[in-house]
């Protein structure tokens, strides 16, 4: 697009301004408008990294140490992923049953799920983790004389306790996400399934849940990203050396060599890379699930929230639009 800088050449201006030569401000504005948004965005990011790099240099961070130790921190990544994947798996199962129970007229199912959601959303995650890790063995010890072997069974290792706690906590939040997802499917779908002679169970399994999945996936992805970060809390239970995740490893080397900042910047970088990679895969999954909801073939390749004309000018950020979750925004548990 060429921007006309001449005076009064076809561009309508207020009459008094049209007579004078454009001022400095006017010329700057016009020059700025000629630069595509995408280029400006790239410059902003570049600027942020330059400033950060400068701070980095000024702080006198020990980059040599970081180069040496980053692999050690990175080795925690598989454990972060394992903890998060196992926990989200547990959370999804709990959320599915929790949501169906919240929608059921069975008083036991409704009551139990109501208690579950209320308790695990209403107390901090860290408290729940310690209740499971430290509280369960105490209960077990006291029950040992009635149920032999229960003490042993409730004596969980930190990793198991962590996965259990994260799964239970996130399952409570995701129960509400799943419930909303199921309820978002129009009543006509359930009626059509019933009219064919389906039972409630069949209607859920064949008609409602497959459609609800599409609605549920984006907020569940959000939960998973939150969980990748909250998995750091499991370290507070004191994991064994061979099973340490990113944060614990950073803490360990940072303390040992007295390089806390360097260590945690490494940890932050690994977490950031992980969540960014996950967002990419989530985007692909969502596009695959849009089958049956887009009219023209190929249309699913463009960001769904934007018209075709706008998609080109916004850049990669457009796909990372935050999807509001039922549970709402939250920073800590």
């Amino acid at each position, binding site marked *: 697009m060429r921007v006309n800088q001449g005076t009064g050449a076809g561009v309508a201006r207020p009459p008094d301004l049209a007579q004078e030569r454009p001022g400095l401000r006017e010329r700057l504005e016009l020059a700025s408008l000629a630069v595509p948004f995408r280029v400006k965005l790239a410059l902003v990011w570049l600027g942020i990294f330059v400033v950060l790099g400068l701070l980095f240099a000024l702080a006198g961070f020990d980059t040599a140490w970081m180069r040496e130790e980053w692999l050690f921190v990175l080795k925690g990544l598989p454990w972060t992923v394992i903890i998060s994947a196992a926990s989200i798996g547990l959370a999804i199962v709990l959320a599915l049953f929790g949501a169906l129970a919240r929608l059921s007229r069975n008083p036991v199912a409704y009551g139990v799920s109501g208690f579950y959601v209320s308790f695990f959303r209403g107390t901090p995650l860290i408290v729940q983790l310690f209740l499971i890790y430290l509280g369960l063995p105490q209960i077990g010890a006291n029950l040992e004389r009635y149920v032999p072997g229960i003490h042993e069974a409730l004596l969980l290792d930190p990793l198991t306790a962590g996965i259990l706690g994260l799964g239970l906590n996130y399952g409570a939040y995701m129960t509400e996400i799943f419930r909303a997802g199921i309820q978002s499917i129009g009543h006509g779908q359930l009626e059509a399934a019933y009219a064919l002679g389906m039972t409630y169970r069949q209607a859920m399994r064949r008609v409602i849940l497959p459609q609800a999945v599409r609605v549920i996936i984006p907020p569940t992805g959000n939960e998973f990203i939150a969980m990748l970060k909250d998995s750091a809390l499991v370290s507070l239970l004191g994991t064994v050396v061979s099973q340490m995740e990113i944060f614990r490893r950073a803490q360990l080397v940072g303390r040992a060599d007295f390089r806390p900042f360097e260590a945690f910047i490494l940890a932050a970088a690994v977490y950031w890379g992980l969540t960014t990679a996950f967002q990419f895969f989530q985007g692909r999954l969502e596009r695959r699930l849009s089958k049956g*909801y*887009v009219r023209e073939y190929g249309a699913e390749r463009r960001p769904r929230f934007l018209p075709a004309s706008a998609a080109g000018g916004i850049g990669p950020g457009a796909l990372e639009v935050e999807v509001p979750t039922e549970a709402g925004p939250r920073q800590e548990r």
Partner: protein
Amino acid sequence: MEGSADGRPVIRVEGLRKSFGHLEVLRGIDLEVHRGEVVVIFGRSGSGKSTLLRCINFLEEPTAGVVEVDGIRLEPGHRTSNKKELIRQVRIRTGMVFQQFNLFPHMTALQNVMEGPITVKGKPEAEARGLAMHFLEAVGLADKADEYPIRLSGGQQQRVAIARALAMEPEVMLFDEPTSALDPELIGEVLEVMKSLSTELHMTMIVVTHEMGFAREVAHRMMFFHEGKILEEGPPSEILTNPRFPETKRFIDAVL
């Protein structure tokens, strides 16, 4: 064509009442529909036509009365496991076509039609596929079998919905204003399919519609609903040309 071989009606409704809160929508409906018969129900919106259809397959629980479909007798009351199973048996024997089509958007046309036979009747996939293709052909959409509903026009979607109901091989088909949500130029194709159900398959049908041309051509009997009751009924030739009640006449004049 009136009357089935064994003389028993496919659908029998007796003293049917339905209230939503204080509003009584159905105020005592009695009717019998025999095998092969096409009954068209018409009347102002809010007169209880749709509610009657929805009470016949218990998508709506009646407040009082009896519904009998193919010999299965249902009455209002608590939904015990036993009653749920009876309701399901009634629904298997009645095909329903909705105003808003209600196709399953995550399935192709073919999958929509196969769904009932596979999930509800437990038919093997190959058999269900054959059955589904047969009925898609019957509604003229064999070439759209692999399309998702969103890529079909309203008329095509409604025809798939008809095929989906037919694939359950029901004793009776209930049509709840099947063309009301369609653009005018798409209404004809759906009515044509419905007409062929009667002429070629001798399907028993209850049709709630305002398409008087269709009624005149296809219906054996017409019923005029007024304030929750059947005010007047008779063959189309009679009711359309010589209605007995001023309400009926006024309504017919308004829609024609």
